[in-house]
Structure formats: C-alpha cells, structure tokens
C-alpha cells in the first residue's frame, strides 16, 4: 500500500518545526539560561544603582535587552509562548498516537515481526487451539492484561495490553504544562505591559500624594486582570488604593473596597526574635451589610472578592514624640519641649541659627545579642535597649547630619549612658556620644555641668578661686600673675568647650615651638583639669553633696565620663541634644494586595502535571501477542512482548510470563 507522494504543505512544515524535540529542548535550555541571568543580575533595582555598577554604556545595553526585568521582558514572554506552541503541537501530533496505543491491540501483527522482537519465544504443544486460547486468556487476565482475539486465515492472534494509562500520562503532563502556563499568563501582568506599550498608562515617578497622581497613572478595579501591589497603613488609617511598582515609578490601583487598619501587633519570643506580625483589618465595602473584620498575619492572608491581602511588612505610622531639646554650647540650662510626629519636620531656632529637624523613624525595641559574658550574668541571649528614634538636623545650607538617640540610659561596664549616634553620610556607621546619667538616672547633672563651663562669669569666678587656692603665699599678692593664670585658664576652657582636648592640642601645635610642645601640653592639661575639677566640685556642692569628705566612686567616674563626653560634643554637629521624653506609639502595617485570577487554573495545570508524571513513570505499559498456528498436527505458539518504559524490567517480566505460558500450555 503505497502512499501518494504528497508534497508537504506549509502547515506541515510549521508543525514539523514547532513539534520537533530539538526545538523543545532548545526552548527549555533557553528559558533556564534566561532565568539564571535573572537571578544573578538583581532585578528591578533603581536605575542609578545599575549605572554605578555597569557604567552608562552597559547600562544602556542591558536596559535595551530588558535584563533588569527579564521575567517581564517581551523576548522572555516570546520564549514562553514558543514553549506553549511547541508543547501544543506535540500534543496535537502525539495525542492520536497515544489514544490509539490505549485502544488498539494490533491484531494484524505478523508472525515474522513477532520473531524479530527482542523478547520473543516459540514452542509447540499437543493441545488444541481452543483450549490454549482459553488458558492463555485466563492467565493474561490474572496478570492484569486486557485481551483481544482475532482469527486470520491460517492462524489466530491473541493480543494483550496492560498499563494503558501510562500513555495518557503523556497527555496529562503536556496539557498540564499548557494549562499552568495559561494560568500564569493571566496573572503575569502582561495586560499592564500592553497598556503601557500602547500608551494608555504612564507610570508616575514623582513622590506625590496618592490623590494628586494624574489619571494616566491610575487604574480602575476593572482595568487590570491581575496585579501585585502594596500599601502602608498607619493604625487607624484606611485606604482604597494600592501602589504597583513599575521599574523606577509606580501606578495607583484603585480597589472596589477600602481597607482600614485597626491595630497592628508584633509579638516576640523570649529571646527577643519576632514571633508574629498581625494586623486587625476592617474591610469597608458597599456590598457588605456591615464592615468585615479580619486579622491577617504572615502565612494567613485574607482573600476577599478575589483580592488577597497579605501581611508583608511593618514600620512606624507616625508616632507622636515629645522631644526635650537641651542646648549645647550655652550657659542657659533651659530646655524646650517639642511635639513632633515621625515623618514630620519643623524648624529649630538655636543660638547658632536656624536648623530644620526631620524625624525619620521611631523604634519601640532595640534588640541586640548579648556577649558571652553578658549571657553568663543575665542568662539571656538578647538585650533590649528600649525605644529610640532617628532624625536629621539640617542647617541653613541644606547639609544634614543623621542622629540615633535612645530614650533610656544604656548600661555599659556597669555605668549608665544616654547614647546618641551621629553620622554625616548613610554609608558610615553611627558614632555614639556617651553622656553619663547622674545618680537620678537623668541628664540633669551633665547638662548643669556643661552649662556651668559655658557660663563666663561663674566659670571665671571658679577659676579665680582655684588660682588663689593653688598659689603659694608669696605669689598671692601678685595680682598680675593671678590674672594671667586665670586668663589662660579661661582661654583653655573656651578651646575645650569648642572642641575638647583635640582643640587644645591643635592650638599648641600652631603656637608653641616643637621642642616645648610636650611640656606645655602637660602644663595646660594640669591647669585645665584644675579648673574642670573645681567646677565639678562647685556643682556637687550646689547639689548638696558634702565635698569635704571623699567624693564617691560614682561621682568620680561621672566626672571622667562627663569630660570624655564634653570632648565629643565639638564634633557632634548639632546645637542641641534631643532627649526623647515621651511618645505615643503608632505603628503602620505594610499590606500586600494581589489579584491572581489564574491561580486555580495554574494549580489545575500543576495537578495534571503531577498525575501525568506518576502515570508515565510508575505505570508500566506492556503489550504481548501470541500467534497460534496449527503445524504438522501440532500447535505452534509464538509469544512476544514489548514494554515501553524500561527494557530491563520488562525483559525480566517477560521471562516469567513466558515460562508460565510455556508450562500451562504444554
């Protein structure tokens, strides 16, 4: 039966191309390679980061190739479409074959072809054809084969088939792949990509209020099939929009309902690690008779009207802080209380001009791991430094330093300090000013000491008293010498107030010849320390401490620590110290909102894929044939079989089948 030599139509050629295994493998490998690039090159970062990393030229190249958002690039989409096409063509071409394999028993098989199979055997028997046929049929049934019989001119064929579901495994896996691709295409956000391409929407790049975002960057609920966005809600706040990040900009997606955050909670393990993040949400929707209240947490999202609401992050939602501003470099011991919320800013009038105070963040807990020694003492692996806040102080020219202040004194080496970290750029770590806490755990003594040193009249009086006390009787009458010493004392104090010991060191380096610098420095330090100590004693007296007796260890240590702190104020950069006096914590919860209508289609595809894989690997598809042919008064039996899955295993099974068959038919 010769087929007419038909010319290949164009369709045949296309099908041939798309259905080829080489194309399929090529696509699989190409997708794998593209995916590798997408994981090695961090995706969707700000463009500036890429320019710094790769330089402008390569940045341009990579951007054009879509390497910054590979999984959303059109060529990647094209690869996936090719995969779907290729798989579809395979299904189109192979499904009929598979279905035929499942149904047809190939009863027209020739004896010759059976003898050519690798698993084959012939033998003769005295038994009659009918009897053998019954025995064999029953035997094969017991072995799980379905059988068919057909009579031919001079022989009879018995064909058996087992595990035909193996063949449907092929269909299940490949259809599964297409189904899951369709599901994920629905959810891939390609609708937005197309809208952007056709100019229907343009992402917003300015940092403006959501209600000011123009229409071209806004999406109505029905405008997008799927999306993934997020919104940060402060406690008590509500929103009916969500932001979608698009490269270096964003879109505003409107929701058909509003989400209100009633409360946000963080729970901790005893070790201090966060244990859970929970948001109590209230959904306001015209479709609801009354608002829907639901708590979401990590791993427990709320699914509402096809939208999924996830607990994603948290932060400060504008806590109200009461800050006490202590002036530095001033004799006045006057504080100013400032009420300000996180993310707000206000002007700050100081002796040194106008500054701007910008409060960036507030943290309720600051948990740090304990050192081995601390662990031994406290028995705990973590310690909590309590609340802190970060802020910037910006001068008139716009230059800002960043600060990180703790509310409560922190214990270090059994001493208590108010810590204030400072840095000029984000890249560097905070350098901490350690202000010692006094015996009432407050800042009062330190600030009083500081003010006293800046009070020219009182400081001078103390200087005069100390000079008098220090001078020998002979010199006591020498008024000029006394005044000189007092003046140099005050000069040193001024230098010290400005920049600590290093200011004095610089002064010596500038004014004193090199060979005398060490001597002069020693003398200066002695003079200055005399003044500082006497000032401190005066301060203690003022507090009512009996200084005639021995000064306590605590007061001694305080003096040392205060002097070190004074030395650091010069480089502190802010004209005030901001103490966190009180706060009203208001948290915000970062909620991710997504819409993935293709999700269940995707899962269906996955399920088909898994079922198909198990069918293909763990159902063994086997066929066997027997040809019964009367020959010279005997019955000639030719037995052959084939298994598609595993030749080795089948060979063993065939051996058993054959030896059984020989036994029962002989």
């Amino acid at each position, binding site marked *: 039966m010769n087929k007419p030599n038909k010319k290949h139509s164009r369709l045949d050629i296309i099908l041939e191309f798309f259905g080829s295994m080489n194309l399929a493998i090529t696509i699989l490998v190409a997708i794998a390679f593209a995916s590798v690039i997408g994981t090695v090159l961090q995706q969707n970062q700000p463009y500036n980061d890429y320019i710094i990393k790769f330089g402008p030229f390569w940045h341009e190249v990579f951007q054009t190739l879509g390497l910054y958002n590979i999984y959303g690039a059109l060529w990647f989409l094209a690869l996936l479409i090719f995969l779907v096409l290729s798989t579809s063509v395979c299904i189109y071409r192979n499904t009929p074959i598979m279905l035929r394999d499942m149904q047809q028993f190939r009863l027209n098989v020739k004896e010759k072809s059976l003898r050519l199979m690798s698993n084959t055997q012939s033998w003769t028997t005295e038994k009659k054809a009918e009897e053998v046929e019954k025995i064999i049929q029953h035997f094969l049934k017991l072995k799980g084969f379905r059988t068919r019989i057909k009579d031919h001119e001079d022989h009879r064929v018995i064909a058996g088939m087992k595990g035909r579901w193996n063949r449907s495994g092929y269909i299940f896996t490949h259809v599964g792949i297409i189904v899951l691709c369709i599901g994920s295409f629905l959810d891939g956000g390609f609708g937005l990509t197309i809208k952007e391409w056709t100019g229907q929407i343009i992402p917003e790049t300015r940092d403006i209020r959501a209600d000011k975002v123009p229409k071209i960057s806004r999406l109505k609920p029905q405008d997008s099939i799927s999306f993934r966005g997020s919104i940060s809600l402060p406690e008590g706040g509500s929103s009916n929009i969500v932001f979608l990040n698009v490269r270096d900009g964003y879109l505003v997606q409107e929701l058909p309902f509003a989400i209100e955050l009633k409360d946000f909670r963080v729970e901790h393990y005893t070790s201090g690690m966060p244990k859970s993040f929970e948001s109590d949400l209230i959904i306001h929707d015209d479709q609801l008779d009354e608002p829907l209240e639901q708590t979401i947490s990590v791993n427990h999202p709320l699914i509402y009207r096809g939208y999924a609401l996830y607990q994603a992050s948290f932060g400060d939602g504008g806590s109200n802080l009461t800050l006490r501003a202590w002036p530095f470099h001033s004799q006045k011991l006057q504080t100013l209380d400032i009420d300000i919320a996180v993310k707000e800013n206000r002007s700050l009038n100081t002796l040194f001009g106008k500054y701007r105070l910008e409060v960036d963040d507030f943290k309720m807990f600051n948990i740090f791991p304990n050192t081995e020694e601390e662990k031994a003492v406290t028995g705990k692996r973590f310690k909590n430094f309590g609340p802190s806040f970060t802020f910037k102080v910006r001068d008139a020219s716009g230059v800002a330093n960043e600060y990180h202040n703790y509310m409560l004194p922190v214990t270090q080496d059994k001493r208590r300090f108010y810590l204030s970290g400072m840095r000029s750029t984000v890249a560097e770590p905070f350098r901490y000013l350690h202000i010692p806490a006094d015996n009432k755990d407050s800042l009062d003594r330190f600030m009083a000491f500081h003010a006293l040193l800046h009070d020219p009249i009182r400081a001078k009086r103390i200087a005069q008293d100390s000079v008098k006390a220090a001078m020998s009787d002979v010199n006591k009458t020498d008024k000029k010498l006394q005044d000189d010493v007092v003046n140099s004392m005050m000069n040193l104090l001024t230098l010290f107030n400005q920049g600590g010991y290093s200011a004095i060191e610089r002064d010596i380096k500038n004014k004193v010849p090199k060979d005398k610098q060490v001597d002069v420095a020693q003398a200066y330090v002695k003079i200055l320390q005399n003044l500082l100590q006497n000032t401190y004693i005066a301060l203690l007296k003022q507090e009512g401490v009996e200084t005639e007796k021995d000064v306590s260890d605590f007061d001694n240590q305080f003096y040392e620590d205060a002097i070190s702190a004074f030395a650091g104020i010069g480089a502190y950069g802010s004209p005030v110290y901001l103490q966190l006096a009180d706060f009203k914590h208001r948290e915000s919860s970062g909620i991710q909102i997504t819409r993935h209508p293709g999700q269940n289609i995707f899962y269906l595809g996955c399920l088909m894929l898994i079922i198909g*894989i198990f069918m293909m690997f763990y159902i063994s598809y086997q066929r066997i044939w027997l040809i019964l042919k009367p020959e010279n008064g005997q019955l000639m039996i030719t037995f052959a079989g084939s298994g598609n899955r595993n030749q080795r295993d089948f060979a063993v099974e065939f051996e058993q089948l054959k030896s059984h068959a020989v036994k029962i038919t002989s």
Partner: protein
Amino acid sequence: MSVPNEYMNVEMQPPFYKQLNIVDWIFAILLIAGSIFAFQKYSGLMDGYEVGILFGTAISLIAIGWVWKPMRALMFYIAVLSLFAINLYGNDLAAAENNFFLKFLFSGQSATMWMSALFVMATVAYFVELFSGNAFTGKVATAMTWAATAMGFIGLLVRWRETYLHGIDVGHIPVSNLYEVFILFAIITALIYLYYEKKYETRSMGAFVLLVITAAIAFLLWYHFERDAAEIKPLVPALQSYWMKIHVPANFVGYGAFALAAMIGVAYLIKDVAVKRNPQGRVAARLPSLDMMDDVMHKSIALGFAFFTIATVLGAMWAAEAWGGYWSWDPKETWALIVWLNYAAWLHMRLMKGLRGPVLAWWAVIGLFVTLFAFVGVNMFLSGLHSYGEL
C-alpha cells in the same frame, strides 16, 4: 466451560494484600495506633492540615513498609529509641548533659554525630569492598549505612522534641535550617541507595553514593563546629506553617535522588573509560554493568523529578500564602525551575530521543551542580525571600 484449575496454580502470585503477613499487619496497627496517640496528645498544637499530614504520613509509611519490608524494622527501631530518648528527657533540657544515654547516644546532637561517624565508616567499608571484593566488608558497609540512617532519623526526631523543650512556642519540625536539612539529605539519599542496593543486588555503587553523603557530612560538621549551627532557634514568622512539613521533605527526596543519579553517573563514566581501555581490568570487572547503572540513573532521576515537581508545586502554593503570589521569580523559585527544566530536558532526551550512554551520565553529573546551587548556592550568593539557611 471453566478453565481447569491445575493449569493456573503454577507459581501464580496472589494479589498484593494476600501477600501481607502478620508482621505487616502488626506494623500497620502500631503506626495507626501511634498516630492516634500523637493526635490525642498533641491535637491542641495542630491545625486541621497538620492532622491531615499526621495521618497521611502514617498511611504513607505503612505503604512504604509493606512494599519495602526492611523499612518496617528500621521504623520500629527508630520509634523505640526515639521514644526512649524523649522519655529520658522528661521536661528537662538539661538532661542532655546529665543523662548517660542522652549525652553519648541519643540526644539530637549525639545521634547526629553517630550518624556522621557511621556514614563515614560505611563509605570506607564500601570502598574496601569495591577494591577487594570482600563480601563480608560489603555486608558491614550496608549494616553501617542502615545504622547511620536510623541514627539520623533518631537525631531529627529527638531534636523535634528538644525544640519544644526550649519553649512551647519555639517547637517546630526540624527541617527549618541548613543544618537540619543536611541531615535529612544524608538519610534520604542513603535510603534511596539502600533500596536500589537490595533491588539490584550489588554493593559496588555504594562507594560512589556514600561519597556524596560523606561530602554532606563534612559540610554538616564544619557548619556545626565552626558556625554553631546546631543551636535550636525559634522560627521566623514566614516559616510557621504546615506547608514546611510537606514542602521540605518532598524537596529532599528530589535532591537525594538527583545526587544519587549523579554519583551513579560518575561510576558509569569510570566504567565506560575502563571498559574501553581494558575490558578485563579490575575496575571494569568490579563495577556493575553499564546497562544496569544507566537503569538506576534513569529510575533515580525519574523518582527525583516526580518528587521535585511535587515539592516545587507545594512551594508555589506555600508562596501563595506567605509571599503574596504563587510565583514571584524569587531566586530560589527560579533555580527550582532551572533544576526542573534541566531534568525535564534529560528525561526527554532519554525517553523520547532514546539517548543513552556517557552523554546522559555527564548530564546527570552536571545536574548535581545545578541542584547543588539551587540547594545551597542560592542561599549563599543570592538574596531573596527564601533566605532561611544562610551560611
């Protein structure tokens, strides 16, 4: 007309359930009873899914024990010794230091150390067997591999209890960090190997497979002693989910099977070269036939692929609950896809194109490196959502 019975009673196998003996049924009853006991005692700590996982696991274990008989004994010993250790603990974690049995044998860490030592010794024994052909050494190697596997499981199960002794809210199944899953990797790979060893009745692949387990043990010990990784830590919120109980083990059946296939691939390549150089040589004679190794390699990759597919889908479903979408192109997800695509291509080449021989063996070996990167490399070099096992 009925078929005469005498024709049929020639060695016909009875149906599966009739082949089960009394031990099989006792084994099944014990497992069911154990799960009911666990349910009664701990149902307060489980949600509906976890109850489902508990009984699903019991049924799966029964099936495994029925199909592969040595597993019944393994499970029995693991259960008895774990319960013994847990009982020794009582409610006091300090017992790990005070009690002899816990300190030297069955505390989570001690058992893991025994597992490590036994695996390394088994590797040596398998190599001795491979070179000398001494059957007794081979039996010892197999016995040590079984013992190591038992110790690994005991270590994990006792550790599970230990997490709860750290605090009722700290307790979790010990498959939550790199230290714990490396134990899981070693014992699952060993189990798959033991299955094939019995099925194909050869021990000469053991040296190769145990080599990859020893490598995992080396990492585990380094991780333990250098990084203090054995410390029990509470779970971050993202990991507090029943999904972890099924996603992670399914993944490690995949990883274990792929690793095994790669090591068989190495053996295949060595044999391939040896046969070409000197067909009568010792190497060619000692290693199993190419045909058989090709078969084991294929079966192992098929097994790994099936379970890896399940694990990845489970991971996607978990991601849909925890990360806001079943697929985010997170590095871990993406690398899982790459591994999947790689083995999908491998299987297509073998099953559809009929490719055989050294090319597939090389491919399986390369596949191990891809798998290794997805397993450990992603955590080391790439940042993403799935950063639970950092070095």
